[in-house]
């Protein structure tokens, strides 16, 4: 069983989705139980994979290869590297908490849960795929259900038309859930198109014999090819991780999406983008990376500060959290752009930390919205008196978000800044640190406005604290944040093993081996 663990992790949600599809729509409890079981199997498998990964040996473990089209060199190939374990566990935790958070869904639950599970199967697949084409296929499987999930189960709101492009606003009904779903899907598909071009360029130039990532990594591509292919990968995957200026799907998409979808999307899917940039872009194209890294880092630094500043001005709770995701994903890309072990470890750690944190955030926002039927922060106030548990967890998420030591956010931010400093990227690090400070301003402002102050006014008479399954989601994610912050080594050593493996390749073209030390 151990050697097929990765297949089990990937297939469990897919099979659960199949069972859900076959169940009658009236069997609402059964649908939920099956979904939760699928998520639980994946979660348990992920934890097992994390724990049993041999860190000393590192490298690729639990390799499974099933040829699909041997002539073209396509095979279903799974393997777990150092990064795999933490990212799998993250995905497992988020989907488990996400299913719990959607327990009270009222419409079309059969379709909802099956789509959610299919999406997650795609995410798991991306994290363990060792075949570029399958990597891309899983990526698409993870991205596309989002259109339906937002378009059907999402919520709409008004965005006033203004600015030079007013005409487009009225035409598209900006703020409508259909608009949000469409924008998100179209932008990500444009990104996918760029990735596809890059994939074929890499495949053909490597001799068109195999999509195996290991094989592609050993190919030495022309410098000129790398220079034009790398930006395709960066922007293609980067769109999903919110790289400026292609981040604008995120606020609208996350604001319109239902709770669990926001959790999954911001918590896990955005990481696929950054993961792709590092795993495909930087590892396969060292020279292109060297060429473009100043731009990547500068844009990432911009992302951090810009996202935080934009978040400060929002009055819609979901927009605040969505912009904070844009800001925090900037930290990931910033770490990746440093090309140092610290930066890369910090980047991957931030993927996990931000995933847990933003999952917690969206779960809380969902609870608040469910009870108060508003997302407008100025209308709220004094909620802590009636929902103390939610207030406590919200504060915890805020503290992690602003990088408080003892929570997961600190470890990643600090390590990333350390990486940036050690390579002399003082401006990037400064922007990042300032971004963290601005984060402190807007998250605490929001906390104060929502939870503190006089008790809730008469408009809100149905406020209640979290309920059973919601507690489950909150406790899992909140505990995760604290454990990761207090003792980061539960995953940090794994991540370090993965970074060592890949960073060596990303730096392969350099005459001086930078890996191994900061000095």
């Amino acid at each position, binding site marked *: 069983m151990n050697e097929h663990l990765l297949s089990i992790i990937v297939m469990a949600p897919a099979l659960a989705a199949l069972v859900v599809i076959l169940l009658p729509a009236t069997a609402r409890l059964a649908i939920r139980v099956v979904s939760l079981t699928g998520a639980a199997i994946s979660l348990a498998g992920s934890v097992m994979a994390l724990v049993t990964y041999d860190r000393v040996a590192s490298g690729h473990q639990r390799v499974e290869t099933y040829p699909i089209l041997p002539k073209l060199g396509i095979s279903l190939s799974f393997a777990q590297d150092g990064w795999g374990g933490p990212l799998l566990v993250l995905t497992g935790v988020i989907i488990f908490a996400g299913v719990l958070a959607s327990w009270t869904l009222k419409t079309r639950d059969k379709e909802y849960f099956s789509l959610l599970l299919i999406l997650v199967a795609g995410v798991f697949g991306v994290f363990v795929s060792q075949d570029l084409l399958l990597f891309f296929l899983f990526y698409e499987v993870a991205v596309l259900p989002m259109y339906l999930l937002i378009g059907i189960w999402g919520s709409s709101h008004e965005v006033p038309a203004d*600015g030079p492009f007013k005409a487009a606003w009225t035409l598209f009904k900006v703020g409508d859930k259909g608009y949000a779903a469409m924008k998100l899907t179209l932008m990500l598909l444009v990104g996918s198109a760029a990735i596809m071009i890059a994939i074929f360029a890499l495949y053909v130039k490597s001799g068109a014999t195999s999509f195996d990532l290991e094989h592609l990594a050993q190919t030495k591509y022309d410098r000129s090819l790398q220079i034009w292919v790398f930006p395709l990968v960066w922007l293609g995957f980067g769109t999903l991780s919110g790289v400026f200026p292609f981040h604008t799907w995120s606020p609208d998409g996350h604001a319109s999406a239902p709770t669990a979808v926001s959790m999954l999307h911001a918590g896990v899917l955005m990481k696929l983008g950054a993961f792709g940039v590092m795993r495909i872009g930087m590892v396969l194209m060292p020279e292109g990376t060297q060429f473009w890294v100043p731009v990547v880092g500068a844009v990432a630094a911009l992302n951090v500060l810009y996202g935080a500043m934009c978040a400060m001005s929002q009055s819609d709770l979901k927009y605040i959290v969505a912009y904070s995701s844009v800001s925090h994903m900037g930290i990931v890309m910033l770490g990746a752009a440093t090309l140092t072990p610290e930066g890369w470890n910090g980047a991957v750690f931030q993927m996990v930390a931000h995933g847990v944190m933003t999952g917690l955030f969206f779960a809380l926002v969902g609870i608040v919205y469910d009870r108060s039927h508003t997302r407008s922060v100025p209308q709220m106030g004094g909620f802590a008196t009636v929902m103390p548990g939610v207030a406590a967890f919200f504060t915890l998420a805020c503290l992690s978000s602003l990088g408080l030591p003892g929570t997961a956010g600190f470890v990643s931010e600090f390590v990333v800044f*350390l990486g940036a400093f050690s390579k002399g990227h003082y401006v990037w690090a400064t922007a990042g640190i300032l971004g963290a400070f601005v984060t402190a301003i807007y998250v605490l402002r929001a906390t104060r406005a929502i939870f503190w102050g006089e008790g809730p006014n008469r408009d809100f008479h149905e406020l209640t604290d979290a309920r059973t399954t919601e507690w489950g989601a909150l406790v899992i994610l909140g505990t995760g944040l604290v454990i990761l912050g207090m003792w980061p080594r539960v995953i940090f050593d794994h991540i370090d093993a993965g970074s060592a493996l890949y960073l060596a390749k990303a730096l392969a073209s350099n005459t001086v081996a930078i890996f*191994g030390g900061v000095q």
Partner: protein
Amino acid sequence: MTPPLTYAAVAVFAPVAAALVLAVLYPLRKKGMPAAVLTIASSSAAFVSAVLLFIDRLQGAPPELATVPWIQSGSKVLADVGLRVDGASASMLVVVTLVALMVQVFSLGYMHDEEPPAFGRYFAYHALFLFSMNVLVIAPNLLQLFAGWELVGVTSYLLIGFYFKKPSAARAAVKAFWVTKFADMGLLFGLLVLYVASGSFGWDAHLEPATATLVTLLFFFAVVGKSAQFPLHVWLPDAMEGPTPVSALLHAATMVAAGVYLVVRANPLFEQSEFTRTVMLYLGAGTALFAALLALVQTDIKKVLAYSTCSQLGYMVSALGAGSMVGGFWHLTTHAFFKALLFLAAGSAIHAVHSNEIGDMGGLLKKMPLTGGAFIIGSLALAGFPGFSGFFSKDMVLEAVEHAGKVPFALLVATAFLTAFYMGRVVFVAFFGAPSARAAHAHEPPWSMRLPLVVLATLSVFGGAFTTPFAALQGEEVHFHLTGGAALASLFGFAGIGLAFFTYGRGPRHEAPGAVAFVERMSNSHAVNRFYEVLFHRVALVVSDALAWTDRYIVDGLINAVGYGALEAGRRARPLQTGLVPDYVLAAVIGVLGLAFWSASS
């Protein structure tokens, strides 16, 4: 683990165990009293082990260290966490746990009227605070110190905002966090520069002079925020919105002193930069005088004490700037005792009259002799009355500063005068004279509030006796001797008390003397606060609104415009599709012809 390390571990982990139990077993917290008992028990354990540790250190053993790698990156250890036992940490640990324990006992009575869940929450925060503070104190390197530093900031935020329903408390909590967090960026930057320069987060690195100046200036920036030095002092008076025992513990005795403790710890680094120390010398002395002036005109007893705390922290910073690590540290210690005493006594008075205004008190000494006595003892210690603990520490500070520069010395002597004056004012107005209507029915608090007053008052009086062993513990030889400067300061202190007596001590209250009116106007203008408000509302928020608008309507607008353009192009191209089959056939034929010509021509 050796016994000293075990003591240290108990001091750190007992409070966190209590905090964890209270976080997980929330029925315990909801009931209130069990939480208090658990927290006080854990603090007692921490205090006892701290004392044991202190006694152990008195024997002069070398520092002991127990660390585990916290982050390993690139196959090397990036940062350790653990325990470091030496004179400084042992002394600080005793101060922190003692004051914390006293404050918690005091809170039993003071917070008694709170709802049980709030009462439980209060003590859970206290447990968390003690853990955070001990993490800071016991830190083997600056990174762990930073972690504790931030954690105490958070508990401070939570405790200031304890009455979160009160908008002013909510604002004060957030403001305190923002200001200190802003300053903490300095520490973060400093750590990064230090690591890049020296490859570790230790405080004993040898740096290039310029780097040392940069690192220490950055550290000092964080100290300015945490220890409420000008111009980042603005959060401390507002922080008085928290419960009074919290003010005593966090915002007088321990947390704000963390800045001083940081400099004490990182002294080897600070010694490498003459420039930073000069900055500290002057800024500390300036803050001391400035805050003392503001303390003159406050009518809220807690605000007087808050500004007084700023002022005394200025003393410590100035002493550190003058190169007297022991002087600053010793003043921190005695100040912790007498300022906690003052706050708790003030809390006791507030508890009795249900008002913070000194005008609402009056004649309290007769009604509450113990409280009044305690407050007077604290005031005398603060004023540096000979024989009291504050006298010894202040003397060390002044002696050091006198050697370092005439101007700061003059500022500090003037501050000594003002300190005596404003404390005299509070004592005479609140505890002597005719009782006000509110004060008529005041009575002594329960034993839980009296006991801490007695303990702290004892320490405030006799603490000076420990001067020599304390200094020895920090590795310095100090013999007390009265210098000319210190004598001068004492004289000025007497003069201050006398002036206060003549102004406020005789019968009904007099209006403030003319010189004070100017300070009053200065204080009421809130210039520094106004500056930050403008910075936040007129600059930061405006910029963020502009950016958000740009993002919404320009960046996103462009993307929408692309979509709009595609639709528009489609709409324009639609007439090409006539829907008439012959037209399509025509197009096909023309296409074939075109292809034929193209293949013929190529």
